[in-house]
């Protein structure tokens, strides 16, 4: 069953012929066999394998360095490469295929009612601060709701308002337009359209209005300052730079 005597050579006839010019065939076969053995040993090992460990297990007299150089060459353009880790040898996924080693799992989620409300207010009233959102909704907005909206990538921090406390202003993103199939933010229906669609009562108070979002939501208004790196650090969106002197 375990007929080790007949190890199948894996080199092509041509290769052996070519080699015969430099080495005698027996020697060449010997090295080729050692390469296969080293391949199996490195593959099966939980840790990178040192040349000493290989020497202990390969037949006596094998040129380990030559065998490993062979093996490295063999795997050079494969999906898996033989690499040096310190002085040891190990197989690793080829660098250009590293993306295969991470995978995203996507979970479909529905936005909560609160998140939808906040999102809509941000869309219509942008640039809008958290306090203003709360004002419009008449309830506090939980931190989680805004986080969720940021995670959707439909909402972004735009800048900071020129008012005491310099509150952060929120607005929508290009992804928001994409997701809701809007060409531009001003395509959001206005008061009359909402009434026409039956979403708003026809008898709203006279002073009730639906704001018209800015034509170009990417441009900061006069009341806004751009976000700086320092702002982002404060908001916990950038890890503070370690300044070493």
């Amino acid at each position, binding site marked *: 069953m375990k007929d080790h005597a007949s190890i199948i050579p894996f080199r092509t006839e041509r290769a052996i012929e070519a080699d015969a010019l430099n080495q005698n065939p027996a020697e060449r076969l010997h090295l080729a066999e050692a390469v296969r053995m080293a391949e199996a040993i490195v593959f099966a090992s939980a840790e990178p394998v040192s040349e000493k460990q290989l020497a202990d297990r390969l037949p006596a007299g094998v040129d380990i360095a030559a065998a490993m150089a062979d093996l490295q060459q063999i795997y050079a353009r494969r999906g898996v490469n033989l690499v040096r880790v310190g002085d040891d040898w190990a197989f690793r996924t080829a660098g250009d295929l590293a993306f295969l080693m991470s995978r995203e799992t996507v979970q479909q989620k529905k936005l909560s009612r609160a998140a939808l409300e906040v*999102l809509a207010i941000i869309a219509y009233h942008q640039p809008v601060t958290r306090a203003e959102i709360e004002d419009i909704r008449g309830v506090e907005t939980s931190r989680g709701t805004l986080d969720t909206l940021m995670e959707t990538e439909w909402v972004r921090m735009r800048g900071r308002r020129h008012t005491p406390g310099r509150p952060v202003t929120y607005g929508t993103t290009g992804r928001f337009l994409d997701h809701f199939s809007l060409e531009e933010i001003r395509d959001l229906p206005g008061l009359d359209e909402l009434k026409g669609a039956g979403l708003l009562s026809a008898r709203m108070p006279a002073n009730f209005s639906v704001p018209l979002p800015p034509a170009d939501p990417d441009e900061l208004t006069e009341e806004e300052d751009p976000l700086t790196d320092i702002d982002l650090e404060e908001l916990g969106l950038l890890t503070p730079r370690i300044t070493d002197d």
Partner: protein
Amino acid sequence: MAQIEDAKAEKATPMDRLWAGGDEMRQTGDLELVVDVAGFEGPLDLLLHLARNQKVDLARISIQALAEQYLAFVEQVRAMRLELAADYLVMAAWLAFLKSKLLIPKQPGEEGESGEELAAILQFRLRRLEAMRDAAARLVNRNRLGRDVFQRGAPEMVIVEKRNEYSATLYDLLTAYASQRQRQAVTNVEIAKRNVWSLKQARDLLTRLVGSLDDWTELDRFLIEYLTKPEERRAALASSFAATLEMVREGYLEMRQHEAFAPLYLRGRQRDNKPVGAAQ
């Protein structure tokens, strides 16, 4: 007795009995057989062992001779007053029955299998068990993972990143917005209230504005530049007036009015005056 102990041992540590034990030659001498009965996996195993001792192909084995051997074995065990498990005795009885059937040719019209048929069934069972035993031996001698053949020793983990994907329709969005705004608009009393000056707000404002004034000044004039909407002005006047009265009482302000509905004049408290509600 040995068999029972063995059975217990197997239950306690099933791993400890080596499958390899089957390769050991069992003793065939009568005495050893008796002692070694615990080593058999039941009567069929014992029969197979006896059959192998006939040293012929199982297909050509004499079932009759086998039955006799088995019965002789059972007799010997009983003579030694050792107990045999019930299966062994059932098999003995069945073999004795088989032997008798083999001796008497099947009568026409007789029910059940003939002796030959029963012998064939026994032979089938022995060969099938032997085949499985050989198969097990072949299986176990294959290249086995973790013994002869190895998997990758340092597997590279796939990093799984979990990401949420949200979905909502424009309709969801608009419905949420419209109904939320409408809800707020209907319970709109708060919006009016928001424009009412609280006493404290009015007082803070007055303190800031009036504190340094020495001359009589109309109250309205302080407020008019702040208040553009008429409804705000009314509320602000009311709060300011209340605040003024309070501040006069505390002696920070002086106040006077010539007649009803005439303008109200205020000024900061004069040093020489006594802090009394002069205009009351």
